[in-house]
Structure formats: structure tokens, C-alpha cells
């Protein structure tokens, strides 16, 4: 009996349901369509307004002057990009080394290590990178009366300090993401804590943190532009400083565009390569 009634009940339910649903659906869709058309019209109006009011001739001359653009090369690559990459390399490897030590201290069972690492990270993450660079570049020489030897040392050191705090937090997160059983298995095979960290846990942690670490690398590469506040010499000009000098020399903004092109020529392949490494690492897991 129940079975006999069921189909008819179901039918009426479905009919009523479709009626009301379709009723609201149509008006909703229409409303969405109207909004969309409105957005398109507004966009076109803005573009037309900009197109009519802006002086394209002047924009092209001051930003996209082909002659000045060409003049930037090859120095913007052989000198400026080279210096940017040197600062990035030393800053990142230094930051990686210090960051690894700080990360391991941060999760250590020894309280004194944690008490050093936690404020270190808080301090350097809390300060603007520019201030850290100024302190290392001007503050330390004033306080100690000595200048660090080497053209790249001061800038690289400042960048390494800035990077180390962020990298330490990345590594710590990576270590904590490695399943606890990995450490237990390693310890139960007789490895010491340190040996298990080095041989088993940290290699896995680095696989996990490839994406955020690449992010750090790109951020650091861009932060090399801050080094110019230290009053670099001609020989250590990085890309941004090079472009700024170029703009002042030529009274034209085109060197900025050239600098942007060079930065992107470095950063885009970098992130692509990291994505490739990440995919490989995931396959091997």
C-alpha cells in the first residue's frame, strides 16, 4: 500500500519543486546577466576615457624609448643582474645555514636554545628589512669603528640575517610536518637525535618546504634592491639601483622597464624550476 502511494507523492513533489525552482532560477540568471553587462559597459567606458585623456605619445617616449632601452644592455645584465644574483646567493645560503641552526634550536628540548631562537626570529621578522640593513650597514660600523672587508659582505650579511628568520620558521614548520614515526623509527634503530635529524627528518622536511623556500628566495632576490641605501659603489650596483641611475642620467623612465624585464627574466624561470623540483620530489615520495 505504501509502495503504491509513493510514486504519485513523488511526482507531485517533483512537479511543485521544479516549478518554483525554475521560477527563481530564471530571474536570478537574468539578474546576473544584467550585472555582467553593466560591468562590461563600465569597463569599456573607463578604457575609452583613459584612452582619450592619456597622452600616449608621451607615455611611449618616457617609458618605452627603444633607444634608451637598448642602451641599458649589456650592463644591466653583466653588471647589475650579476650583482643582484651575488647578493641573493650569499644572502640565501647564509640565511639557509643560519636558519637551519635557528630552526633546530627553536624545537630543541634544551630550554636555553629555545630562549635564544624564539626572540631571534621574533626580532628579525618584526623589523622592516630596510631597518635591519641600515643597522648592519651603518649602525655596526659606528658602534665598532670597523668596516667589514669585501664589497659584498655587509649587504649579504644583512640580507642573510633577514632571510634566516623567515627560513628558520619555514624549516621548523617542515620538520614538524614530518610524521613523528619517522623520528621514532630512526631512534629505535639506534640513531642519536642529531643523527636522526640529519639523516632522516631534515631531508624530508626540505622536500615539504620547497614551495615556501622558493618564495623566500624570490622575496630575497627582490629585497636586494634595498641594499642600495648603503651607498653602493658603481661596481656593486644591483638592478634597481642601476635602473635608478639610468633614469637620472637619461631623464627618462625606460630603464625602469628594462629593470622590470630583467627581474622577471630571473624570477619566472626560478619559480618554474622550483615547481618542477617539487613535482619530482612528490613523485619520489
Amino acid at each position, binding site marked *: 500500500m505504501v509502495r503504491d502511494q509513493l510514486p504519485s507523492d513523488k511526482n507531485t513533489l517533483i512537479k511543485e519543486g521544479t516549478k518554483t525552482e525554475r521560477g527563481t532560477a530564471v530571474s536570478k540568471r537574468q539578474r546576473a546577466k544584467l550585472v555582467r553587462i553593466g560591468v562590461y559597459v563600465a569597463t569599456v567606458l573607463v578604457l575609452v576615457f583613459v584612452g582619450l585623456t592619456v597622452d600616449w605619445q608621451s607615455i611611449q617616449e618616457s617609458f618605452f624609448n627603444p633607444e634608451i632601452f637598448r642602451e641599458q644592455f649589456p650592463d644591466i645584465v653583466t653588471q647589475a643582474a650579476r650583482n643582484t644574483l651575488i647578493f641573493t646567493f650569499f644572502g640565501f645560503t647564509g640565511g639557509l645555514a643560519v636558519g637551519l641552526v635557528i630552526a633546530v634550536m627553536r624545537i630543541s628540548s634544551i630550554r636555553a636554545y629555545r630562549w635564544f631562537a624564539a626572540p631571534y626570529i621574533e626580532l628579525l621578522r618584526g623589523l622592516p628589512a630596510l631597518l635591519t640593513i641600515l643597522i648592519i650597514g651603518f649602525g655596526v660600523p659606528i658602534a665598532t669603528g670597523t668596516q667589514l672587508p669585501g664589497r659584498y659582505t655587509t649587504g649579504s650579511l644583512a640580507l642573510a640575517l633577514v632571510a634566516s628568520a623567515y627560513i628558520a620558521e619555514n624549516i621548523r614548520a617542515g620538520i614538524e610536518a614530518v610524521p613523528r*614515526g619517522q623520528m*621514532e*623509527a630512526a631512534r629505535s634503530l*639506534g*640513531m642519536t637525535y642529531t643523527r636522526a635529524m640529519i639523516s632522516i627528518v631534515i631531508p624530508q622536511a626540505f622536500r615539504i618546504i620547497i614551495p615556501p623556500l622558493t618564495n623566500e628566495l624570490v622575496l630575497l632576490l627582490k629585497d636586494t634592491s634595498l641594499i642600495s641605501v648603503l651607498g653602493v659603489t658603481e661596481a656593486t650596483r644591483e638592478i634597481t639601483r642601476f635602473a635608478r641611475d639610468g633614469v637620472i642620467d637619461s631623464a627618462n623612465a625606460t630603464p625602469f622597464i628594462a629593470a622590470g624585464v630583467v627581474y622577471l627574466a630571473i624570477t619566472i624561470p626560478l619559480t618554474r624550476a622550483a615547481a618542477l623540483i617539487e613535482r619530482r620530489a612528490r613523485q619520489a*615520495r
Partner: protein
Amino acid sequence: MSNDGSVAPETPGATDTPIQIHDLYKSFGDLEVLKGIDLHIERGDVVCIIGPSGSGKSTLLRCVNHLEVPTSGRVIVDGFDLTDPDCDVDKVRRGIGMVFQLFNLFPQLTVLGNVTIAQRRVLKRRKAEAREIGIQALERVGLAEKADEYPINLSGGQQQRVAIARSLAMNPDMMLFDEVTSALDPELVGEVLGVMRSLAEEGMTMLVVTHEMGFARNVADRVIFMDDGQIVEEGPPEQVIVDPQHERTQQFLNMVLEDY
């Protein structure tokens, strides 16, 4: 003070009793998990620990190789008192193989890498020697042909057998098994139990936390039933599993064996 953390054996001939546990208590915060465990295991014994989840059997096992630090009491393994602060726990652990529920193979290493890394880094064996011993260990679990695979490419049963081989490659005096078949698909349980059974037949000292009543009944020399952090009943399997004396053991076995 001796460098290797050795202490005078508790009793004469203690080496014939490689695991001695005295009045062991373990708490996690306010939760008391082990409430006074006394346990002696003789060389060559296969002892299965059964009991409901939360009864403390895994914690007891983990106290034997100091993965859990006892709150009080003594754990003496191979004559070394692990609860002595001067004991070199890392050294004692070399003699204790441990196999985990979730395998815990090292995913970044090949199967061969898994069975050689501790030999190389801990025992300082040469590469060729470690490789040879590693392959032998893999042969014992029937997986020598998988030496160059990564763990991810193996079935659960194969991974667990590699984990057993990884421990065997260290030439342990005893093996601890912590619910090693609980994470496996039913059809893969047999191959792991088979390896464990052959180890038992070769005379390995084994402490096995398990839910496999058939294995406990057929392979164990002694079965221990734990409940609520205490050993409720222990004895040969015919007694504890077939004819349990204690009411709690009877209740547990009725629930577990319902499926049979």
C-alpha cells in the same frame, strides 16, 4: 662510570632474561596508563600482549626501548637499566628491533637504503658489508628483488616486511612488534605474520602487541592479557586464550572472537 651505561645485572644470569620490567608506572599528564607492570621475558621467548585498546599495551612495548620514558619503575634490557639516567639508551636500542603499526619506512630512501642507513650511520659498517647484510635481511622477508624500489611503490604488506628487514639488518637480540598488521588490508596480513612466525621458529626473542588471536594462539609461548594499565592474566596460550580464568579476559575474548 662505565661509558656504555652498563649496570651490574640485577640477578645472576640476567642475560638469559633480556627484558626485565619492575613495578613500571607511566602517566601522560593526569592519565595513568601503566599501573605497576612486572614482566620478565626469557631469551627465545615469544610473548604476545593482547587486550582492549587503551589498555596500555603499546605504551608498555614503547617503554621497553625507551620511546616512552617511564614515570617510575625499572626497565632492564640486555642487562642495561634504561631508567638509569647514565644509560646510553642509543646503544641499547641497537640490540632491540622495533616494527611499527604504520611501517615508518623512510620514504626518501630506496628499500636498500632503508635497510642499510642505520648499519652505515650507527654501526659504521662499510658500504659493501651493509649492502650484503641488507640484502640478506631482505631475502629473509622474501623481498630482495625489491631492493631498488621506493617504499611508496610497495604494497602495505611488502612495506611492513621491509620494516622487519630493516630491524633484522641490525642483528638485534630481540624484536618488538607494535600492532604490525593493524594497518594492513586483510589479504596482506598473512605474509607479515608468516615472516614473524619464521622469526619465532628461528629463536628470536619477540614481544608482540597484537589483535591476531590466531597468531597469539599458535606462535606465542606466553600470552599476556592487559586491561586498564595492568596485567590481568598471563600464561601459555592454551590457558589465556582457550580457557581464560579472569572475567575481564573472558569478556574481551568473547568480543574479539565473535567473528570466528
